[in-house]
């Protein structure tokens, strides 16, 4: 089971009410390479992968939920006091018509999250390569959002999340190495 902890993994600060940025950030909330997809992808793959890497999938999958909460916090702070007029001007008119100020799992273009964003092939190497690719894609998405954002506080949190993708990719690459080698062989010398 999981335990909730009443804290964010990283402090999230936002400089100004800017629903435009929220519209882009939703990509990492309910988009194909977003944090929800990541968490569900890794936690779901655990049931059909060698025991040696189940711990890693569990721990990275769990961390992804902490990232999902950070993204939600950013969107919440950027939109909570925005007027319908401001939402409309930010390109969130269609979102407002359906959801008011509620968050929803869709991507920046408004398409709802779908399970087809994630894969589970049951082949350990195929699944770990998918995970490595997912981390690189999420890293790239953070770069594109950082390139468009002019909020220094928000960018600070986004840079943290981008760096986490680099570390996760590193660990998944190591997991592949572990599965490549004979049982119980030392991985470093």
């Amino acid at each position, binding site marked *: 089971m999981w335990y909730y902890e009443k804290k964010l993994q*990283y402090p999230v600060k936002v400089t100004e009410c800017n629903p435009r940025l929220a519209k882009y950030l939703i990509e990492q909330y309910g988009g194909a390479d977003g944090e929800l997809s990541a968490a569900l992808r890794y936690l779901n793959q655990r049931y059909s992968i060698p025991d040696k890497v189940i711990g890693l999938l569990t721990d990275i999958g769990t961390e992804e939920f902490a990232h999902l909460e950070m993204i939600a916090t950013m969107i919440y702070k950027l939109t909570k006091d925005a007027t319908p007029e401001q939402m409309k001007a930010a390109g969130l008119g269609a979102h407002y018509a359906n959801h008011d100020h509620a968050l929803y799992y869709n991507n920046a273009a408004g398409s709802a999250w779908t399970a087809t964003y994630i894969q589970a092939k049951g082949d350990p190497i195929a699944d770990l390569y998918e995970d490595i690719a997912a981390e690189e894609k999420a*890293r*790239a998405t*953070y*770069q594109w959002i*950082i*390139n468009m954002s002019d909020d220094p506080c928000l960018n600070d949190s986004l*840079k*943290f*999340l*981008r*760096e*986490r993708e*680099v*570390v996760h*990719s*590193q660990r998944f*690459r*190591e997991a592949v*190495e572990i599965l490549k080698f004979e049982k119980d062989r030392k*991985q*470093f010398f």
Partner: protein
Amino acid sequence: MYTPIKCYQPYHGPFDPCPSRGTVCYQTPPNLYLGFQPPNLQQFPIQEALYKGTLWPALYDPYPTPLEKGAKR
């Protein structure tokens, strides 16, 4: 040693309507080069690691990549 960013000049045809973007760059983060992380790598102090996003300088990849002195993006 590796560089965290690579750049190239995309082909610009005489009938391309937009002015050329010039040099285009992409990131090549440290996880592409580190291999299986060796033990006992140097660490950031605990107070700093959070703000770097990693405990190990060997995995730290600031973005945007800091420009070399005098360079233009």
